[in-house]
């Protein structure tokens, strides 16, 4: 992947990492690498082992086995950690009686970071006006911003952020999105954990999905989304399929329904469900992206890689009546849930979903 060619000092790597807390296996032989210049989403349901992995990366927790490194070094061996890695682990690590500015001054002192930089990062996260207030009076969103300010103190090339969007209002989330994109644009490595894919899908380039301490999938986000497709419903699927194929488009489904408009109505309504259920593959092979969707119902054609406008144009030229024409959006959240579902807790895979 991109990691192979990128600046190796900015690569975050986890190799065969295992952490056991008593009888609980929090992280189970986990391996992945995070590339610089991209925002990577570190995803998984609550309790999947995300925070433990991040804490091991930061030498806060000792792994039972395996390695977690930043630029090839364990965090505890970094000569100048604050200038190398910025971490925001939870929005709760503040003394309520200390002001935001003093909280940062305490940290800045350890790396001889001047007070000027403290004011700079407070401005960067939009806390300049509240800098001299005690953190006890801060909202959750303000604490998140303060945690981010602390991470930025040393202007680090690698950022590890644990659920940074928690407690932010919609405006704050939009701001965070732009901020993270900007940081990655500067060539930094940005790893952001979240238990909600929808929360980060507009921000991340890559995803690392884990569940029960194990890697489920690592891929660029677009691989997870699959190629866009157009769904078209018509009383005459046969002629339309021929017309589209002639126009050089990839057509799926259709002719089975033949010219029986009666069946098309009910089948068309079920399209959404069909596509959603298809993601519940549950076979463990994570067959997602292209080829994973269910065959469209009778009377409905799926045209891959073509926009609704071009499909509509072909139909118009051929004089074919259309009853529905829309872009098929993959349900990323359903994909995520299906991928991370615990087979022991979810019970049997729903009938028909595995086809």
């Amino acid at each position: 992947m991109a990691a192979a060619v990128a600046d190796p000092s900015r690569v975050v790597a986890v190799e065969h990492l295992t952490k056991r807390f008593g009888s609980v296996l929090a992280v189970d032989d986990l391996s992945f690498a995070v590339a610089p210049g991209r925002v990577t989403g570190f995803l998984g349901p609550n309790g999947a082992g995300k925070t433990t992995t991040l804490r091991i990366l930061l030498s806060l927790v000792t792994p039972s086995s395996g390695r977690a490194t930043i630029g090839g070094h364990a965090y505890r061996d970094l000569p100048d950690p604050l200038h190398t890695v910025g971490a925001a682990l939870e929005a709760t690590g503040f003394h309520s009686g200390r002001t935001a500015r003093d909280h940062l001054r305490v940290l800045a002192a350890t790396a001889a970071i001047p007070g000027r930089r403290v004011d700079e990062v407070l401005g960067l996260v939009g806390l300049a006006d509240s800098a001299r207030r005690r953190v006890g009076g801060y909202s959750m969103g303000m604490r998140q911003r303060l945690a981010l300010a602390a991470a930025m103190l040393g202007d680090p090339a690698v950022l590890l952020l644990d659920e940074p969007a928690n407690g932010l209002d919609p405006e704050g989330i939009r701001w965070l999105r732009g901020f993270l994109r900007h940081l990655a644009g500067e060539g930094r490595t940005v790893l952001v954990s979240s238990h909600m894919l929808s929360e980060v899908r507009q921000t991340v380039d890559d995803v690392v999905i884990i569940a029960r301490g194990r890697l489920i999938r690592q891929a660029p986000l677009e691989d997870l989304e699959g190629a866009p497709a157009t769904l078209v419903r018509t009383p005459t699927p046969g002629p339309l399929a021929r017309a589209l194929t002639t126009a050089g488009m990839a057509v799926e489904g259709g002719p089975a329904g033949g010219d029986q408009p009666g069946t098309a109505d009910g089948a068309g309504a079920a399209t959404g469900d069909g596509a959603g259920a298809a993601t519940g593959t549950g076979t463990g092979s994570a067959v997602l992206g292209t080829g994973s969707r269910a065959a469209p119902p009778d009377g409905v054609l799926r045209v891959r890689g073509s926009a609704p406008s071009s499909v509509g144009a072909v139909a118009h030229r051929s004089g074919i009546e259309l009853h529905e024409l829309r872009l098929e959006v993959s349900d990323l959240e359903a994909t995520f849930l299906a991928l991370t579902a615990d087979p022991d807790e979810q019970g049997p895979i729903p009938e028909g979903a595995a086809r």
Partner: protein
Amino acid sequence: MIRLIRSESLKLFTTRLWWGLLIGVVLTSVAFAILAASTAGRSLGGGAASPGLNDPAVVRSVYTAGLGVAYVFALALGVIAMAGEYRHQTMTATVLASPRRLRIVVSKLITLIAVGAGYGVATVAAGVLAGAVVIAVRGGELRLGSDGVPRALVLAVLAVALWTVLGLAVGTLIRNQVLALLLAIGIAWIAEPIVAFALNALNVGEVAEYLPSQATSALVQPSTGGGGVTISLLPWWGGALVLLGYALVAGALGAAITLRRDIT
């Protein structure tokens, strides 16, 4: 290391705790010194008169009257310096800034000993000022340069400084700050003096001599008469060594635990 010590002192001086404790030690020191100086040599409740101001040990007791409160406050400061980091979860940021944890413990120790010594100086200064006024009014001799008074004052400062280290160890062992404070203060202020008194009453005072509170008393060699029980104390240097020993063991224990612990 200098940077870490700067960071640790900023931690102490950017919350309101430090001046609360300072006001506490100064006020109690003044009050106890005045009380001790006014009642010395008088008969309370119709019993035999206590030793008077012409006894040098009484003068040492007056000047260091606030010590008993000051060392417990120092203990509390040490507890809070460590357990407070867990309570407010600032330990994460602290360890991220300095992943080599031994340095954190050492810089905390140095900072606490220095700040503890500061509280010691405040305690002694307040005690000497208030005590000297009362002694002068009662026509007693101030003895500020004689009879082991200067040594007692310096060692009282040392004692307060060393008690912060005991607090640090307690705060490391028990991360729940409230519980750690209750236990530390409860033992230092209530349980341990009772045990010491009981041991002395049972004529095995030589065992009690090695308890932290008794070792602290030995540093200032106060007046030990009265109450019907004779309290035996180590010589001043013995008390200093015993207290230093406690601090060393406590510091090493705190460091060893902090180094290994997962911070979750």
